[in-house]
């Protein structure tokens, strides 16, 4: 499938009379494997503010397999972006600090590396595609300069070899006429093209993991669709693992193999994408999915999540979602910090009576309180 879609796109670029590219295969499943490329263990990132310590990421565990897309979903303040910055060790310090945890990539713990070693990893084995392509590119350097920077550092190339590699990276993200485009400055490109350049920087050093932090929010639907398709193709060609940070369940439905839902700095539910859509267990996941209007049919009145996202410096001690939950529960049910429990194979959920409606079914899986 990788070859066929690839060919149609190439055709489109070279011969526009072919016209419309019809993707009959849809996105389908990728060749994901069970080989873990990145593993995050008990990550904790805190910020010191004048209101107190903000636990932006509060004990998060997940892994990414080769060639797989893991979606991290949540609203602003849920800690999804700080999780990503922590992996890159780009959390501004102070006020932020990675307090605890391990990030394993290529047999090393990134959090234990020296800053110098980390510079070698960042943009090399792991890279990030940021949200706003206008801010991510420097207006005073041309495209070849910016794409070449990462290649120069990580692959120690220069001169003609560097140039070839830059053009090659631009070609990989399907920028037409890459030799001429490489000499352009960011303002000469359209929004969609700029975002592709940012993508080219991301993939230029053949990373094992790419973090995509809402890379399409500022793009039009048609450009967004083209960009998502491109990411998927690159993933199939290079076998790279993608962490896709988003708040849009449409993107999750289209792009992701597995999904982690974050709320108030913690993961409340993780599973494969179909289980998350067909059988969500946590009330927050359920509410998020059902509160989005559907394109495919005229929706009746949307169910809405009452209340506001919590203030992270003033979290309720036990189940952080309890104040917004519509389930019936006693204060004691919500008092315990809910553990993330594997309720079905590969389906983990933060188990508590205040956030899971069929809690009783899984109550026997709850670890004893003193285990923590």
């Amino acid at each position, binding site marked *: 499938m990788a070859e066929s879609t690839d060919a149609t796109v190439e055709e*489109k670029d070279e011969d*526009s*009379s*072919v*016209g*419309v*590219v*019809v*993707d*009959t*295969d*849809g*996105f*389908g499943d990728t060749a994901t494997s069970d080989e873990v490329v990145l593993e995050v263990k008990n990550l904790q990132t805190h910020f010191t503010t004048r209101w107190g310590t903000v636990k932006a990421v509060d004990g998060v565990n997940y892994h990414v397999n080769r060639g797989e897309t893991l979606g991290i979903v949540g*609203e*602003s303040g849920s800690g999804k972006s700080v999780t990503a910055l922590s992996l890159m060790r780009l959390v501004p310090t102070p006020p932020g600090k990675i307090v605890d945890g391990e990030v394993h990539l290529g047999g090393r713990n990134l959090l234990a590396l020296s800053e110098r070693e980390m510079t070698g990893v960042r943009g090399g084995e792991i890279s990030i595609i940021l949200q706003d392509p206008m801010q991510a590119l420097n207006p005073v350097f041309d495209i070849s300069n910016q794409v070449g920077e990462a290649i120069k550092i990580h692959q120690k190339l220069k001169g003609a070899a560097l140039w070839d590699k830059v053009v090659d990276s631009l070609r990989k993200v399907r920028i037409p006429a890459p030799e001429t485009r490489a000499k352009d400055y960011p303002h000469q490109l*359209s*929004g*969609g093209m700029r975002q592709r350049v940012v993508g080219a920087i991301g993939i230029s050093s053949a990373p094992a993991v790419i973090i995509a932090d809402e890379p399409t929010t500022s793009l*039009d*639907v*048609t*450009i*967004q*669709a*083209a960009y998502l*398709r491109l990411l998927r193709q690159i993933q199939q060609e290079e076998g790279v693992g993608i962490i896709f940070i988003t*708040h*849009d*369940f*449409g*993107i*999750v*439905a*289209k792009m*992701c193999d597995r999904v982690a839902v974050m709320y108030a700095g913690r993961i409340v539910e993780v599973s494969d*994408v*179909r289980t998350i*859509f*067909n059988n969500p267990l946590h009330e927050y996941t359920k*509410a*998020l999915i059902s*509160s*989005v*209007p*559907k*394109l*495919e*049919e*005229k*929706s009746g*009145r*949307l*169910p*809405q*999540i*009452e209340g*506001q*996202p919590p203030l992270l410096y003033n979290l309720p001690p036990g189940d952080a979602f309890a104040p917004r939950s519509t389930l019936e529960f006693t204060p004691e049910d919500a008092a315990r910090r809910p553990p993330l429990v594997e309720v079905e194979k590969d389906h983990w959920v933060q188990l508590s009576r205040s956030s899971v409606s069929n809690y009783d079914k899984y109550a026997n899986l709850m670890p004893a309180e003193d285990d923590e």
Partner: protein
Amino acid sequence: MTIAENVSTAPVPPAPGVNPSADAIISIRNLRKWYQVGGGFLGFGQKIFLKAVDDVSFDIERNKTFGLVGESGCGKTTTLKLLLGLEKPTSGTIYYEGEDVSTLSKAGKTEFRRSVQAVFQDPWSSLNPRMRVRAIVGEPLEIATTMTKGQIATRVGDLLSETGLNPYQANLYPHEFSGGQRQRIGIARALALNPKVIALDEPVSALDVSIRAQIMNLLVDLQEEHGLAYLLVAHNLATVRYMCHDMAVMYLGVVQESGETEAIFNNPMHIYTNALVSAALPSHPDIQREEFLLPGEVVSPIDPPPGDVFMTRTPLEVDPNHKWANERPPLVEKEPGHWVVETPWSMASDAGLQVELTSHEGV
């Protein structure tokens, strides 16, 4: 019935003196906004125009929502600004309750401005950070009514509770609120003068997913209670399908397809509409839509082709000698209340590109 049968919406040539439809609170006819961007030095030479809105006609019916969709640069926001009087149209007419707005008396214009209010996209930049909520929501009342301070304070409290805020929050500043709450403040301000029409410019796209449903439901409730008409500008098609009764799809300043929202989603006729629908994100991972990308990119609205603006993007062959390659094609009513620009290269059925939206069964 979006566009009344007795009204010709044929945009070319501009038909003077067409009556607006009776059901419409706002009727827009042959509206143009051209910006001169070059040429014409001292009256000599060829003038070059950026045609942001070029011959747009539609009706907003009472108590209903009209949606404008399209990619950035298609002219949907300019159309909204023209309605609000923030831009002066190059030509064309806006009718409010059957009367041409440009010929209204001074009192009539004041009445029109009170009746048409706006809610903007970004609740962070559309509220003055140095004003208390009390002043923000009360400002229109202070300017446009003779209410006393006490009456204004009571009204502000009522407006805040109506939009789901607490009246005691009137003394706070905008930065003390979350995004969703700020958007509620914006809505309260828009409601202050009991308007009949509210222009909504991407009212939920800057908000968190969990908050969007709250704001959309609030808007729907307010519409029912106050009999409001909305003009909704959005690029999210699912939002448009949820909120709008009627809609128009714009490309390069020109309406390509318009009609009842359900008619368009059930049977999108124009290739461009189908391209937008096919690119929209699915609501379930098992929905695998056939997705197609149009050749090329959106062309510049500066000096667009004299004929059909869509002809540079169509996958079908364009005969350069065809009438519609040299002259602007009109909207044709293909089905009752469903209008589309029909040319040999614009119809999805001719290209075999019609998208059928099927929802996911079960769950």
